[in-house]
């Protein structure tokens, strides 16, 4: 289990991360979201002991993380992608394996296996510089996965991957999860957050603005979105108390509500006039929550 307790970091008089707390258990995935400069990478750097927090504690099963424990247990893919361009995939990965104390024979088997699983295009004897960006990124990913870390930290792992490769990465992350690995990743892609996270933390200027399981976060906002398919009278819907906004869509309407309860009134109202193929009152998606949190002022309501 890894636990951050009231962790803060200042650069000069700029608060990069303030009072961040969360804990993560074996087999859980946490996504760290937030705008550029929100403090995500800084948080990772503190967990990895690259920089020391100004205050607060980072604990591993209740004890402070030692540098040795970090190198042995944590796999890290930084935001800045890089490998030795002149080396082959194989020699590069064998070097990383050796740094983790793995035997060469064992590493070679794993390496081939991972290259197949992540569908790295090319042979293991290809030079890194000949690889496309996405492929090099996958090689880097293999480097952090092959030694079976207990904690995997991925800084924007999806950036630069096509949808097929993103899917492969999601699979790899889920496999790691099944094997009990804790995963912390940052991303700007809310779909992937939705697909993967057991726990979400959103930072804004270093402050934690959202924290919890996806359900907890959705509940904070309530089912304030409503999709109705079929022809609807927009003006009539607008007049119902609690309806904030009605947008006409290709196959129906999309409503934003001020409170969950008015859904019932709308339901009675629209079904009065006959058959409604789809009536879906749902939570705002993460993208909307994200944008809301970014732009929110104190008096706003989603």
């Amino acid at each position, binding site marked *: 289990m890894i636990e951050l307790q009231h962790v803060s970091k200042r650069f000069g008089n700029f608060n990069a991360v303030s009072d961040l707390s969360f804990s993560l258990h074996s087999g859980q995935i946490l996504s760290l979201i937030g705008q550029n400069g929100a403090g995500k990478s800084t948080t990772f750097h503190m967990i990895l002991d690259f920089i020391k927090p100004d205050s607060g504690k980072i604990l591993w099963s209740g004890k402070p993380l030692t540098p*040795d424990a970090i*190198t*042995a247990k944590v*796999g*890290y893919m*930084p935001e800045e992608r*890089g490998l030795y361009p002149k080396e082959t995939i194989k020699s590069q990965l064998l070097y990383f394996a*050796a740094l983790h104390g793995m035997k060469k024979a064992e590493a070679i088997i794993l390496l081939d296996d991972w290259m197949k699983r992540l569908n790295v295009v090319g042979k293991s004897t290809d030079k890194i510089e000949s690889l496309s960006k996405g492929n090099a990124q996958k090689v880097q990913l293999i480097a952090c996965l092959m030694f079976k870390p207990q904690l995997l930290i991925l800084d924007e792992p999806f950036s630069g991957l096509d949808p097929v490769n993103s899917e492969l990465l999601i699979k790899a992350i889920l496999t790691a999860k099944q094997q009990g690995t804790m995963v912390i990743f940052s991303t700007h892609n809310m779909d992937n957050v939705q697909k993967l996270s057991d726990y979400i933390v959103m930072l804004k200027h270093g402050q934690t603005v959202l924290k919890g399981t996806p359900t907890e976060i959705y509940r904070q906002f309530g089912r304030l979105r409503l999709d109705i398919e079929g022809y609807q009278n927009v003006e009539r819907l607008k007049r119902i108390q609690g309806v904030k906004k009605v947008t006409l869509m290709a196959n129906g309407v999309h409503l934003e509500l001020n409170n969950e309860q008015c859904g019932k009134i709308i339901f009675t109202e629209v079904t009065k006039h006959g058959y409604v193929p789809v009536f879906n009152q749902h939570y705002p998606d993460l993208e909307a929550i994200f944008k809301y949190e970014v732009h929110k002022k104190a008096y706003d309501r989603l």
Partner: protein
Amino acid sequence: MKILKQKQVLAVACHEIKGQLSSFTYWTIILWPLLIAAIFERSGNIHLDLSTSNYLNLNLFWGNFLPIFIFMVSLSYVSIMANSVAVDKTSKISEMLLAMVDAKEQLIGKISATYCLMLLHMTIYAGLIYIYERVTHGFIVQTIIRNTSPVFFVYIVLDAAVALFMALVWATEIASYVTDESQVAVAVIPVMLLIGTGTMVAFLFNAPHYFDAGISVMRVYANVVLAFPPIGSLLMPTLLANQNVSYVEAYLNIIIQLVIIAWLLKQSIRQYRFGLLSSKKANPFLSVLAHENTGNLKENKR
């Protein structure tokens, strides 16, 4: 944990050695002194008359030869080392590496590798000299070595190793701030300036007529100054060869230097780690050389 660290040092060193052995630079460093030696040999410029060689003649030879030798070796290996660190930096692999292996193991691994490479270099020369002397039936080098007192010989080997160590540690620290490969040359300059100064002064000392009296008057002062690595390592062999200092003083000097180096190494591991992580910040050493305002070197950007 201990074992893993040793394995990591070994892995870093092996990786380094493999990389250098397949690099053009390393073989150039071995080759070009040979080419120069060949020119001297062709033009018949090498003649050390050993029939008249008394103790002083031989000392004069060592006093001249050692500073140049140490300067050349340092120049070569400092560049190799600085380049290797710069490649890590510019390949943007430093952050990933640092999560796998601590800066200390990286530094020690790289330094050990450099010593191994130098040892190989010297072995190649020794082999070539042996063959050459066999073929030409001239035994100049063998005679020089045979006539040199073993105590002195052991001292100069140790001394050269200490001088190189200091140069390497220092160069690595500076090179860790390099963000662009074109800056490598500049990273080598401060170290070479110091070593160069030592070499010059050693030459002055090797003209005994000027300095005999001075050194005995200022003995205490000289010993303090000379303790500063690598000045001591550069001057001591000359002073020793000219019998200006005693063996006790010379060995004491090495011990003091080692203590200072140990302390500097500790500092430099910190600097090295910090440098490796600084991708955006300007290199403090380089900015000084470029007459730029370095600002605050601490981690405050804002």
